[in-house]
């Protein structure tokens, strides 16, 4: 029996929109085991991104606890959260979220700069990673010179820069055509199967859910079904 790498315990997230409180999460409970590939599905606005952001330390819960590797991250200081984001988490976003003014390689090395990786080491690692996602020929290109599929592969390479345990992918194929989307999914599966990365992926697409070991169905900020 593998142990849980992620545990959400009665997590609430309330956003204040003017005078109204919006409960994006309403007491969500959720476990992910180490090495698992989990898909989160649900209608738009059901709180999928919010949940993933909690796990990724981009945001902290209004109420409840979030455990990552047994450590409660719900009450950590900003700099400790940043530390975890940098070292233990790799993000892949629907809109790629690369920095446009620097090259593919620099986008990847930047993640390592923040962790104080020495220059030759991070250059070498960035090249390896770009090679791994079949983008060796794009090393010095800027994101604006690349197709969506290429950008997302740069983002995957960047997510792997500091060799994190957990990959969080928020609708990673949402902005891609189905063929490119499948290629990205194959990469994610490979990361899960070969490298043992724990992956949480948010998706709308039933057909992508088959890549996952487990599907969590989210509605109105709470998990209504796991399968």
């Amino acid at each position, binding site marked *: 029996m593998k142990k849980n790498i992620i545990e959400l315990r009665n997590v609430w997230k309330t956003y204040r929109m003017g005078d109204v409180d919006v409960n994006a999460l309403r007491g969500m409970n959720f476990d992910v085991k180490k090495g698992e590939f989990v898909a989160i599905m649900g209608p738009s606005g059901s709180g999928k991104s919010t949940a993933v952001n909690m796990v990724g330390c*981009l945001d902290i819960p209004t109420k409840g606890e979030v455990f990552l590797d047994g450590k409660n991250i719900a009450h950590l200081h900003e*700099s400790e959260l*940043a530390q975890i984001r940098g*070292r233990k988490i790799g*993000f892949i976003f629907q809109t790629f979220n690369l920095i446009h*003014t620097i090259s593919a390689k620099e986008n990847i090395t930047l993640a390592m*700069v*923040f962790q104080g990786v020495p220059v030759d080491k991070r250059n070498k690692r960035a090249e390896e990673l770009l090679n791994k996602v079949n983008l060796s020929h794009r090393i010095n290109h800027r994101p604006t010179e690349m197709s969506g599929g290429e950008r997302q592969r740069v983002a995957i390479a960047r997510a792997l*820069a*500091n060799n994190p345990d957990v990959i969080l992918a928020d609708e990673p194929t949402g902005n891609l055509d189905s063929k490119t989307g499948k290629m990205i999914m194959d990469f994610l599966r490979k990361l899960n199967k070969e490298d043992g990365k724990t992956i949480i992926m948010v998706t709308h697409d039933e057909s992508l859910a088959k890549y996952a070991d487990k599907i969590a169905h989210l509605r109105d900020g709470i998990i209504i079904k796991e399968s």
Partner: protein
Amino acid sequence: MLIDYAKFAFNGIRNRKLRSWLTMIGIIIGITAVVSLISIGQGLKVAISSQFGDIGTDKLTVTASGGLGPPGTGVAKPLTKDNLEKIENVKGVKVAAGRLIGSAKVEYKDEGIFGNVASMPGGDGREIMESSFDLEAKKGRLLRDGDKRKVVLGDSIAGESMAFSGFEKKIDTGSKIMIEGEEFEVVGLLEKTGSFTVDALIFMEEDDLREVLDISNEEYNIIMIQVHPNADIKIVDEDIEKLLRKERDVKKGEEDFTVQTPQATIDQINSALFAVQLFVYIIAAISILVGGIGIMNTMFTSVLERTKDIGIMKSIGAKNSTIFTLFFIESGLIGSVGGIMGAVFGIAMATGLASVGRLLLGSELIRAEISIWLILGSIFGSFLLGTIFGVIPAIRASKLNPVDALRDAK
């Protein structure tokens, strides 16, 4: 790591070239002004001290008028031969000599200029003049007692000089020149003295000058006094002032003459220089302040434009302090680059102005005194300015919530 941040910040500046340049203009102007004017001002101070330094600390100069108008302009009640004789008898006075200065039409061949003519006192007075003004003949000889219708020319008069104050044609010893229609023989050419006013003088004997310029036998423009080595120059100064007040029948505070020590003259010019410098400093300070506000504005815009990038960097592990450092370095870098450019322009402007000044006045003394500390100080100051005005935008950038920043439209 700081190096990496600096590279990243530099990249940020490069990606916004036009705006970065515009931002720097205020600082560039301010630092250019500061560097060039301080350098020129220092250079002038050195030049002035060296001009007056020669006169020595044992000499006093009495002039008619308030002392600011050039002597010989005839505005003030002139000093008199009687004043001179009385001064010679003041205790502590070793030698006193009367001088006349005037301007006259001077012609050589078919070229004519208005030149400044100065009298050479006879007797002991001659030596004070020669030593005070460092007069030495580079060709021919200096004037001596009994020289009639003879002149010695200052270095910038005799041609070949870059100065605008003299003749274009070269005048050699033995040549004849016409002064107010009278013929004079050039018996000597002076060595450059280091004082551009002295270099532009034509020296002749006192009697000749009185005749040529039609000045009465009683008048003097300037009385030069050498004080006895054992005498206290301050007391001699006071005694002469007391005497002249009595002789010229004026009350204390209403003097129509001035007794000047070389130091007082230097102080006077320095304080005039200081007023000019102060004015320039104020302008420089304003443009630097405007430059600083420009940096702040640019950095705020930059934070807005890069909100998404900030969110991205936070999502891949940047701490608040990291973001702060990035923006802080960027604004410091804008400041420093502006400062470096300002320093370069300032040096260029100072040396340029100094060489124009040398051309116009024909004095090698006018130089820009560029101190390395001034340069380093202004570059460091600009860096500081950038960082100071960059603090608030950098704090704002660092405090952005990562999720909100990532949701930013761009």
